């Protein structure tokens, strides 16, 4: 199998005031195979989110390199990073990050809109994605009219809008009750089976049963 994500000697150091430095990543190297489902675990502050952000092109490292597919992520300019995120990455956040004034349908269609997909086409695709995550009778609801589990399912549908090969989910079940959490994990499992490479961050040891591989992190290192 080929690796879709290759991380080499990645460092992220935050310069705080008074010459204090915080090391979020202290030199991380790892490879994630195409089509795999991995979970980054470790105590709070161990650098899991930082790693995921840099892999997804939301943040830049202090040093080291990240390659995703054919993209040399760490050497892209702002514009190229935006196109990289569109094409390669679907993000799922702990706090859903839906736009409150938009309906479920509009939220899911938002990435397509930014890419310039026509209105009819993007709403049709958004509708199908909502159907897939079991929310086809909630398409015109606003996020606040829905439960946390339902909101996260909208977020999953949104992450799939551009059909990206890689899905990055930072504690996707962190704000959910057990049943909803299991539900989301099952959904991610199904996506993985369809070929998406998935990397999640989680605290919950029970979630590990869904994944192929666990990356243990501590103090900015992979163990």
């Amino acid at each position: 199998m080929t690796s879709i994500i290759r991380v080499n000697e990645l460092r992220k150091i935050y310069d705080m005031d008074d010459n204090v430095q915080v090391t979020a990543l202290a030199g991380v190297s790892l490879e994630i195979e195409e089509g795999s489902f991995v979970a980054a675990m470790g105590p709070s502050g161990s650098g899991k989110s930082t790693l995921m952000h840099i892999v997804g092109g939301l943040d830049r490292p202090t040093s080291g390199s990240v390659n995703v597919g054919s993209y040399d992520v760490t050497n892209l300019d702002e514009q190229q990073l935006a196109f990289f995120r569109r094409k390669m990455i679907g993000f799922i956040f702990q706090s859903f990050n839906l736009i409150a004034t938009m309906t479920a349908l509009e939220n899911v269609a938002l990435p397509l809109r930014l890419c310039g997909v026509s209105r009819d086409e993007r709403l049709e695709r958004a509708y199908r994605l909502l159907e897939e995550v079991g929310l086809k009778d909630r398409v015109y609801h606003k996020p606040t009219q829905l439960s946390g589990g339902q909101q996260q399912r909208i977020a999953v549908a949104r992450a799939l809008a551009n059909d990206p090969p890689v899905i990055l989910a930072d504690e996707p079940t962190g704000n959910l009750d057990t049943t909803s959490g299991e539900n989301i994990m099952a959904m991610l499992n199904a996506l993985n089976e369809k070929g998406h490479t998935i990397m999640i961050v989680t605290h919950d040891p029970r979630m590990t049963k869904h994944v192929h591989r666990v990356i243990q992190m501590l103090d900015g290192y992979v163990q």
Partner: protein
Amino acid sequence: MSFIELVKFIYENIKRQKGRVVLTSLGVMIGSASIVLLLALVGGLQKSATAQFTNNASLTEIEVNAGFGGGFSSMGGGGGPESMGSPGGGSSSTVRTSSESEELLLTNDVMDQISALEHVVSVNANQSISGNSTLVYQKYQGRVSLTGVDVEDLSDLGLTAGEGELGLSSGTIVLGASVSENMYRPNYSGSDATLSTDLLGKQVKLEITKMSSGGRSTKTVRFRVVGVLSEAGDQSDYAAYISMTDADNIVSWVNGERVNHNTDGYSSFTVRVDDSDNVLDVADVITDMGYQTQTAQSFLENVNSLFSSLQLVFGGVGAITLLVAALGIANTMTMAIMERTKEIGLLKALGATNKNILSLFIGEAAGIGLIGGVGGCLISLALGSLLNAVGGAYLTEQATASGTTMTSSIIYMPFYLPLFALAFSTIMGSISGLFPAMKAQSLQPVIALKYE
């Protein structure tokens, strides 16, 4: 994102923050409306101030008055706009003002000199008559400003006949359009207290009164009314014209000695020039000869430059209002971006480029400007027509009461003025949004996403 898609997106974003947008654009509305209205007001004033110079005759005319050895500007005569367009009308300056010997009089020699100037078509002398001139017909009487002219026909002076003819000879008189309707019966209040008879063809009397050491004395001269001028809307409506011969007799009586135009001069000349383009040049030459000149042109120029500066001042006042509104937009956009930091981070995570974010937020600011501009245009159009309806009616009433038919509108709003304000508000909105939008585009997505 295509441009149309971008506009739609901006429109939706504006729609979901209605309250804030309305409040902010209210400032722009007031600002743009005040610019438009102030400029339109100045424009209206300028229009009514210059309206009486639209006839071509007065634009090729120069009125020349006696000089005081040069050093006077062409506007130095102090005569208002009213005294132009009518020879000697209104200003009842006497021939002999008690002044130094260096006074440059408008003698026959001077008339010949001026006639010889290039571009000069004709020079006519006017003799205004000092002392009170009262026109009397039966029991009615009214004051007139009496002028003697050396032309055979008043049309040579750019005047037009309302009825009758304009030819003058000894013993005939031509009246301004409003003269007869201003005649009244003294100490009488019946329904026929004012004159309603047409004076054309009638015999009238002119009573000239002078004060001298011997007390008050009055001379009565008979005239036949041969013509009535058409309404001009200026002082010539209240003037009466007689031949120079008759005027000389009257002036001689008033002054107590025979008038000699070779030594005493006339009160003014009306110089006609071949083309309005040459008026100011000829006037300059005459001014350099030491005489005072007045032209509708130089007056127009002065009026126009006065109004240009007024427009600058009023426009500036409006612009300051709009500037305050611009600060309002900048403030609103800054607030909006702070509030929507997380949304900006999300948009970036979902693949929005920096350019997308920049155009979205500049577009929102421009949209607020546009909404304000549209509102401002509507307000100014509505207020403008209201002012014209109410104030215009008042002005017309005033004009009628004073015997003129000048219908002025208070507001002059050319179509491009609101359009200009609209474009200006929109551009100003985008400029106000520029810095906030640049701040938005430079937000690091990860930091924006963590922002609470």
